[in-house]
């Protein structure tokens, strides 16, 4: 015997190493036994000896003193692993359905909750932040409470904030800060550009707990009249206009023609309180902050009573909102006392920053709807898992019956199945978490906030998956324990499942119903967006629209008016331009002057040159158009405004009160009515508009419209003309009219993408569920189909038979889905998609068709498989 051959030595080493696992008391004998046998085997070949020695670790491991339960569980875990590997297709299908359900639902939920409550870049503990609003009789903004009641909620003005900031010492409120945004022209190392700027109070960054990436933020000392001029720049500005130079701290930049020393750089993606709009990037956010004390002397500063500032307070740790509200009541009283003329009866309110200033009923409906989407997908995914598990139950029940007959206890069976199910759910959850983290990391760039995985939702979703998994994974045990072992064994495995085929069919019906509901929802959203953009006045397609804010440069209102007029005159000289118009736009409250101001309504005030009506093709309904001779004392109103002020009668000749906050109240006489023209895409009917003459002094931004058959061709020339009129001026936007209009429908488009993706995932899951059920049904009816074919049935009839069964499921599901979708469509119409009829056939028919097509696709393979059943083989099987 070659006892010293390397293989034998290797085998001996293996045994010696394995012996370390054996309890010391038994170790010597154990080693002797293995070496004794190894010696005997070595004579038959080194290879066999090595194979023999490979079993030593397992034997040694089995001798370790285990706790009883642990060893039993370990055995069950091994069994579960074998089960999972033995049926890879089933395991993968269950895990895939769970992963799709978990990823889609948790990712969507996380995005939604992050948008509402997540941390914004540079803002820590957003949940503690409250926005401060004031209300008074003449305020122009309001908020709708969840009960539908409206409260006036206006941003605080300079004077309001001056009063409120004194309250910083209140017990429940830590600190109050504010910023007010204005467009400014800022020049770094690469010349001047028009940027979003902001004036921030000394406490502003402290409230938000923003940490500078370089330098420092403002202090109270910076925010005092006469303090050194300092500025904080956004990370984007620092990179693009200061070349990301660390030495830029302390260097002066020109803002609005004045020199400010840069003292700090804000963190990346931080642009103040206001979130960037959907589709905007870092270049659109606030780039430069100046101390609030400078706002009062800024050329374009709003008046002291203009509701312009965004005030934000931080709740002290442990303090409740209600305490803070009580203290803020003091602010309201002081505001009222300080300006009894304009602010009598002032109130102040605090709103959690999470939900934004529009936590209205519509918002709640939208949020409820958005949150229902991920849950629906999760439900459909779980239904699929249930379906797959039930399909296997009959087969597995037989195996369990054998185990029971061989002496396994009931507890053991239940434990085995539990571990098997747990293994699937744990694998799916781990995989989902990985995918979600990757996905959210990818998506973060598209959102203005940090998207973090919502672990509460993840736990809930995983818990639900576990409950569904266990409930359906334990069905085999239930089937077995319910019957006698012999009875179960004798039963044909393929008929064992018929009982719960009904349950599975029910699950598919539920899936189809939910999918159809989601699809119809997508359809409604899509139709709404279509209607919004389709409502764009056709004239917009023949316009080049440029927006300007000359005040940014410190132009006086008179100079600004002069600039606008020159620009319009020069542009009109181009032969391709058929008409040129100028206009301004403001939010106002208006009403007949003989009625109390309290009943005034919100409206848009458009100041226009007479050519505007022609440029926009605005249809005159009654009265006359504005002419160049008209001053600000006459106005045209839109059809909607006419219905409001003179329902059923003629508004012509009526005297209107138009209240532009911060400005003197105006009286205008109505001379004409024009048809409704939407100023931006809206899901509702365009709001009331009051048209007056273009102002003689231009305090804010204005819009230039050039009418031409080829507006794009004018773009380069217009840029040249602007440069020639005043090289300092930059436009805030310059686009073809309909494109600028469509841009404003972005939010609705994002909603459609979100709902659409959810609906398609749901559709795919449902189609999989239907496929699984139909395949199973075909398997169950194999014998019957075999007999039918044997007695001469045409394969085509078999296909038709299976398809009929499938269509029955889809049909019932669709009927239920429609009955769910209709009330939802009515609710949507009642809340936020008022433009589309609730029963829009174009929202319902194509989506139902898509679902039906998916149903056909899912059942055609099982049906064809049924038609190819070999009758002889099937009959012989029994």
């Amino acid at each position: 015997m070659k006892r010293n051959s390397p293989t034998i030595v290797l085998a001996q080493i293996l045994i010696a190493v394995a012996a370390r696992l054996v309890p010391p008391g038994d170790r010597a004998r154990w080693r002797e036994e293995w070496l004794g046998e190894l010696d005997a085997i070595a004579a038959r070949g080194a290879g066999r000896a090595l194979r023999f020695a490979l079993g030593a670790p397992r034997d040694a491991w089995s001798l370790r003193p285990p706790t009883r339960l642990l060893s039993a569980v370990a055995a069950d875990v091994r069994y579960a692993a074998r089960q999972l590997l033995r049926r890879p297709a089933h395991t993968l299908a269950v895990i895939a359905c769970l992963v799709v359900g978990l990823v889609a639902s948790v990712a969507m939920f996380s995005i939604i909750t992050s948008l509402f409550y997540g941390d914004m870049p540079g803002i820590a503990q957003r949940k503690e932040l409250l926005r401060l609003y004031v209300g008074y009789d003449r305020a122009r903004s309001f908020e709708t409470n969840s009960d539908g009641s409206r409260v006036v909620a206006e941003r605080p003005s300079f004077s309001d904030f001056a009063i409120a900031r004194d309250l910083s010492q209140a017990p429940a409120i830590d600190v109050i800060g504010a910023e007010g945004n204005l467009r400014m022209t800022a020049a770094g190392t690469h010349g001047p550009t028009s940027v979003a700027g902001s004036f921030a109070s000394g406490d502003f960054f402290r409230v938000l707990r923003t940490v500078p990436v370089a330098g420092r933020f403002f202090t109270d000392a910076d925010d005092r009249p006469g303090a050194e001029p300092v500025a904080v720049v956004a990370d984007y500005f620092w990179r693009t206009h200061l070349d990301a130079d660390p030495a830029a701290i302390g260097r002066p930049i020109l803002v609005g023609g004045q020199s400010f020393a840069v003292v700090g750089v804000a963190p990346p993606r931080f642009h103040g309180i206001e979130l960037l709009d959907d589709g905007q990037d870092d270049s659109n956010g606030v780039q430069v902050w100046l101390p609030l004390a400078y706002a009062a002397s800024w050329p374009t500063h709003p008046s002291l009573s203009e509701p312009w500032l965004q005030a934000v307070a931080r709740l002290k740790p442990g303090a409740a909102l209600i305490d803070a509200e009580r203290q803020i009541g003091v602010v309201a009283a002081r505001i009222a006392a300080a300006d009894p003329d304009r602010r009598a009866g002032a109130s102040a309110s605090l709103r959690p920053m999470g939900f934004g200033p529009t936590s209205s009923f519509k918002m709640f409906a939208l949020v409820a709807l958005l949150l229902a989407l991920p849950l629906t997908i999760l439900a459909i995914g779980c239904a699929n898992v249930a379906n797959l598990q039930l399909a296997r139950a009959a087969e597995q029940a037989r195996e369990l019956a054998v185990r029971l007959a061989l002496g396994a206890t009931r507890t053991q069976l239940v434990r085995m199945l539990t571990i098997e199910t747990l293994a699937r759910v744990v694998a799916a959850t781990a995989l989902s978490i990985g995918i979600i983290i990757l996905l959210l990391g990818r998506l973060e760039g598209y959102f203005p906030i940090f998207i973090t995985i919502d672990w509460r939702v993840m736990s809930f979703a995983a818990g639900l998956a576990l409950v569904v998994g266990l409930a359906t994974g334990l069905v085999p045990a239930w089937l077995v324990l319910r019957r006698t072992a012999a009875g179960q064994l004798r039963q044909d495995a393929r008929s064992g499942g018929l009982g719960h085929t009904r349950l599975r069919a029910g699950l598919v019906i539920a899936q189809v119903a939910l999918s159809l509901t989601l699809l119809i929802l997508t359809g409604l959203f899509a139709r709404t967006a279509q209607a919004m953009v389709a409502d764009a006045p056709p004239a917009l397609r023949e316009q080049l629209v440029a927006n300007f804010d000359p005040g940014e440069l410190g132009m006086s209102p008179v100079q600004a008016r002069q600039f606008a007029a020159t620009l319009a005159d020069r542009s009109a000289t181009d032969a391709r331009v058929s008409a040129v118009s100028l206009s301004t736009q403001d939010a106002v409250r208006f009403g007949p002057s003989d009625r109390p101001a309290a009943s005034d309504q919100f409206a848009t005030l458009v100041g226009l040159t007479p050519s505007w009506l022609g440029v926009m093709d605005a249809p005159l309904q009654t009265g006359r158009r504005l002419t160049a001779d008209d001053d600000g004392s006459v106005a045209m109103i839109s059809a909607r405004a006419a219905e409001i002020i003179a329902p059923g009668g003629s508004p012509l000749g009526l005297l209107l009160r138009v209240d532009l906050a911060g400005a003197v109240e105006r009286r205008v006489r109505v001379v004409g009515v024009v048809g409704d023209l939407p100023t931006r895409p809206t899901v509702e009917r365009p709001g009331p508009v009051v048209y007056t003459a273009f102002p003689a002094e231009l305090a804010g931004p204005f819009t230039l419209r050039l009418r031409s058959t080829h507006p794009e061709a004018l773009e380069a020339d217009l840029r040249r003309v602007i440069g020639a009129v005043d090289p300092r001026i930059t436009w805030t936007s310059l686009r073809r009219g309909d494109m600028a209009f469509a841009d404003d429908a972005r939010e609705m488009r994002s909603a459609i993408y979100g709902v659409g993706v959810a609906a398609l995932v749901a559709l795919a899951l449902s189609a999989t569920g239907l496929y699984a059920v139909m395949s199973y049904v075909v398997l169950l009816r194999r014998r019957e189909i075999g007999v039918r074919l044997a007695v001469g049935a045409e394969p085509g009839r078999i296909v038709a038979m299976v398809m009929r069964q499938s269509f029955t499921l889809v049909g019932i599901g669709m009927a239920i889905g429609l009955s769910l979708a209709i009330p939802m469509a009515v609710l949507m119409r009642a809340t936020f998609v008022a433009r589309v009829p609730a029963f829009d056939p174009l929202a319902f028919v194509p989506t139902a068709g898509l679902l039906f097509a998916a149903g056909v696709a899912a059942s055609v393979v099982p049906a064809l498989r049924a038609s190819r059943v070999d009758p002889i083989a099937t009959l012989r099987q029994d």
Partner: protein
Amino acid sequence: MPTLSYAALFVLQALNQGHRFGFDIMDATGLPSGTIYPALRRLEALGYVESSWEADAQARKANRPRRRNYTLTRSGKLQLAEAETRYRAVAKLFPKRGRA
């Protein structure tokens, strides 16, 4: 009555046929050593199998370690008989191979 695995039943059968050493049982059953030995330990703990060591002198003469041999106990034989009956009943429930 404790549950016996298939492997344990095979081992009982091999012992019943007169195989006494772990290695012989491997040969007879075709199961690997890592399955045979833990089964033997378990059967011994249950009292179905007993083991003894070969005489020291004999091993020393052949210049090799001692070998351990296993035999069925009385209750082991009873257990085997019972299990075989049960397995035959179970076997009847399955369709015979090759028919389908």
